[in-house]
C-alpha cells in the first residue's frame, strides 16, 4: 500500500513537471518533436518530403528555425515568457516547412514510434499526451522494480530522491529520448541484477524471465538514444557481471559466460571510446590548458548540473536559483553519509570508477555532451550501486540514522520546490520577474487544467510526500 502511494505521489510530481513548460521546451525540442512527427515515415500533412530537395517537411509550429511564431518562439531568452504562443496562428499547424536542421533524417526508435501514437492536430495537446505517457512508462518501470525487487527499488528510490530533481524529473516527463533512458535504464539494470542473482541461486525460469524483462527495458533505453546510451548500457552490463561473477556456487559454464559478456562489452566500450590511445589523444589535442579548462569548467559544471539543474533544463535558457544546487548537495551528502556502512574494497573501486567515468565523459568532447544531463543516468546508476553495496544488500535506507532521514527529505523536497517554481516562472512570466505568486501577471499557461500556483503546490507536495514515505521510518508499533 505504502509503495502504491509512493508511486502515485511520484507520478503527481512528474505530472507537475510535465505541466510546467510548454511544448518543445526540452533541449532541441524542435528536433525531437519533428522526429516524433516523422516516426511513422512519410504521412500526408504530418511529415512529407519536398519532391525537389528531398527535405523532410513538418508542421511549421514544431520548428525553431523556421519561425517566427511557432511553438518554440520563447527559446533563447530566459527573460521572455512563453506568451508569444498567443500570437501564433492556425497556419503553424497546417503549413509544412523544412526542419531547418542540417540533414534532418528521422530516427524511428521505439520511443519515437510510441510518441507518434499521440500525435494529433493540436501540437500542444499532443505534447501533453506524450508527456503523460512518458510519466506512465516511468511509473510502470518503477512499479515493476518495486514489485519484483523491493530492495533494489528502495536503493533506486533513494538515489532518485536525492538526484531526481530537477534534471531527472524534468526529462522523465519530457518529449525527449532521454526520458526513456532515465526511466528504463536504471530500472532495467536493477531488474536484471535482481533477477540474475535469484536465477543463479535457484535456476528458476521465473527469475530468468525477470532478467529478460530487465534486458528488454535496457534495450528500449538504448534504442531511444543510441548515440550515448550504448555507454551506459555497457556500464550496466559490466556492473551485472561485477556483482555476480564472484558469487558462490557458480559453475564453470556460468563463469565463462559472464566473463565472455564482460570481455565483449569491455571491448566494445573501449572501441567506441577510442581505447587508451583515444584518451591520450584527447589530452594531447587539448594540451595542458585545454585539459585543465575542461576538467575545471566542463566536468565540474556537469557534476554541478546533476543536482543544480542549470542549463541542463530547457533549451539552455532556464535559470535555476543557487539554493537548488545547495539543497541538492546537502541531500546527496547526507544520504550518502547516512546510508554508508561497510563497503568492500571491490565495491569502492567500482564506485570510484563510475564516478570517474561520470566526471570524465563531459570532459571528453564527442558523443557525450558537456551538460550534466548527458551523464545523469550514469550518476544515478553509480549512486544506486553505492546504496546497494554500502549496506550489503540494498538496505541503505533502513541503515540510515533516524536524524539523517528528515534532513534528506527536507533538502530534496525543498530543492524540488525551488526548482519547480523557477521552471514554471521561466515560462509564465520569464525569469526576470521576481515574486512567489506564479499566477500574478501570467503571460502564458496551458489553455486548460490547473493554474500555475496549483501545479507548483501540488507538485512540490507530491514530491515531498513520495520522498517522505520512501525515506522516513514507519511509525514504531506502540
Amino acid at each position, binding site marked *: 500500500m505504502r509503495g502504491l502511494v509512493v508511486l502515485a505521489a511520484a507520478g503527481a510530481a512528474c505530472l507537475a513537471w510535465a505541466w510546467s513548460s510548454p511544448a518543445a521546451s526540452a533541449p532541441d525540442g524542435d528536433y525531437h518533436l519533428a522526429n516524433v512527427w516523422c516516426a511513422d515515415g512519410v504521412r500526408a500533412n504530418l511529415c512529407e518530403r519536398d519532391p525537389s530537395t528531398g527535405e523532410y517537411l513538418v508542421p511549421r*509550429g514544431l520548428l525553431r528555425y523556421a519561425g517566427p511564431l511557432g511553438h518554440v518562439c520563447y527559446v533563447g531568452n530566459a527573460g521572455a515568457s512563453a506568451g508569444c504562443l498567443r500570437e501564433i496562428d492556425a497556419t503553424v499547424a497546417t503549413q509544412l516547412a523544412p526542419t531547418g536542421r542540417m540533414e534532418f533524417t528521422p530516427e524511428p526508435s521505439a520511443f519515437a514510434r510510441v510518441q507518434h501514437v499521440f500525435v494529433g492536430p493540436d501540437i500542444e495537446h499532443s505534447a501533453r499526451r506524450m508527456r503523460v505517457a512518458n510519466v506512465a512508462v516511468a511509473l510502470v518501470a518503477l512499479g515493476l522494480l518495486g514489485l519484483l525487487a523491493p530492495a533494489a527499488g528502495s536503493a533506486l528510490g533513494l538515489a532518485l530522491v536525492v538526484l531526481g530533481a530537477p534534471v531527472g524529473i524534468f526529462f522523465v516527463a519530457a518529449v525527449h529520448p532521454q526520458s526513456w533512458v532515465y526511466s528504463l535504464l536504471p530500472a532495467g539494470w536493477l531488474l536484471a541484477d535482481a533477477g540474475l542473482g535469484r536465477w543463479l541461486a535457484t535456476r528458476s525460469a521465473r527469475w530468468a524471465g525477470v532478467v529478460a524483462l530487465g534486458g528488454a527495458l535496457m534495450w528500449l533505453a538504448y534504442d531511444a538514444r543510441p548515440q550515448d546510451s550504448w555507454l551506459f548500457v555497457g556500464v550496466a552490463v559490466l556492473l551485472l557481471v561485477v556483482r555476480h561473477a564472484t558469487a558462490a556456487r557458480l559453475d564453470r559454464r556460468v563463469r565463462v559466460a559472464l566473463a565472455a559478456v564482460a570481455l565483449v562489452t569491455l571491448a566494445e566500450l573501449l572501441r567506441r571510446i577510442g581505447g587508451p590511445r583515444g584518451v591520450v589523444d584527447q589530452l594531447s589535442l587539448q594540451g595542458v590548458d585545454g585539459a585543465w579548462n575542461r576538467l575545471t569548467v566542463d566536468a565540474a559544471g556537469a557534476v554541478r548540473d546533476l543536482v543544480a539543474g542549470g542549463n541542463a533544463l530547457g533549451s539552455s535558457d532556464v535559470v535555476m536559483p543557487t539554493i537548488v544546487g545547495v539543497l541538492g548537495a546537502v541531500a546527496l551528502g547526507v544520504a550518502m553519509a547516512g546510508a554508508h556502512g561497510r563497503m568492500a574494497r571491490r565495491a569502492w573501486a567500482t564506485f570510484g570508477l563510475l564516478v570517474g567515468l561520470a566526471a570524465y565523459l563531459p570532459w571528453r568532447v564527442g558523443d557525450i555532451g558537456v551538460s550534466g544531463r548527458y551523464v545523469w543516468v550514469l550518476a544515478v546508476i553509480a549512486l544506486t550501486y553505492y546504496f546497494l553495496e554500502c549496506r550489503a544488500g540494498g538496505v541503505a535506507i533502513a541503515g540510515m540514522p533516524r536524524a539523517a532521514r528528515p534532513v534528506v527529505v527536507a533538502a530534496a523536497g525543498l530543492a524540488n520546490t525551488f526548482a519547480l517554481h523557477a521552471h514554471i516562472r521561466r515560462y509564465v512570466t520569464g525569469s526576470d520577474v521576481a515574486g512567489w505568486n506564479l499566477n500574478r501577471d501570467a503571460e502564458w499557461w496551458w489553455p486548460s487544467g490547473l*493554474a500555475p500556483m496549483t501545479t507548483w503546490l501540488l507538485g512540490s507536495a507530491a514530491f515531498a510526500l513520495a520522498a517522505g514515505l520512501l525515506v522516513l521510518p514507519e511509525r514504531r508499533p506502540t
Partner: protein
Amino acid sequence: MIVRIRRIARPAAAVLAAALLALGVVRSERTFTNPMDGDAIPVGYWTVRDLRLAVEAHAGDPAEPARVVLVETGQNASLDPRYEYAWQLVIRGLAPYTTARDAADPADGAATEWYLAHAGDLFTVWDDVFKSGLYAQGAKALLVGTLVVDGATTGERVMYPLNVISPDYDTGDTEIDYTVRPLYPEEYTAEISSLNTFGLEPRTIPFDGRLRLVDVTLLVEPLDVRTLPG
C-alpha cells in the same frame, strides 16, 4: 504527556499540511486568470476523413448529427457573369486552410473549429467533400465582404446568399474559383440565414453586374460529416 504529544505530532502535522495545501489550491484556482483564455488553439486536420473522425469524437453521441460549417477566408473576391444566371466567383489570397466550424450552437458562444489544411491544394479538399454527393446540386453559402466600387473600398459590409457549385482550382496556390448563382428566396432557409451572425441584409447580385469585395468570408451550409468519404 511527552509521549502523547509525540504520538499525535505526526498526524497533526500531516493534517495541518494537507489543510494548508487545500487552502492554497483553492485560493490559486480562484485567483488565476488564464492569459490564454479566448485564444484559439491552432490545430491542423488534413483530410476530410480526419475531419469526420474529429467531429464525431467531439460530438460524442453517435445519434447526434455531426455537422460542420465550412468557412473560406480570402483577401478579396470578384463576381463576374459567366453565362445566363450564373457567375464566376474567384476568391484570392486564400488562407492556407479551410475552417470547419461545429454547427451545434455552443452554450458559451465559442464554436469548436477544425482546420483542413490544403497548403495550396484546396481543390483536392473540396473534391473530397464533393465526392460525398452532398453538394451535387450546389451548396448554399453566404458570401460576406466589404464592397469595393471603382477600385476603392466603401467600408460597407455586404452579404450575398449564393448557390456555389464546381469549385475549381487551377489559377494559383491561393485562389479558388466557383460557379455561383443567387439563391432563390425560398432557398434562403432558416438554417442558411442562421449563418448570418453579422446581422447583414441579404443582397442579390445585380443582373449582368460585376462585384468586387475585399476581406471576404464564404460560409457554406452545414454538412453532416458522417456522409463524408473515407
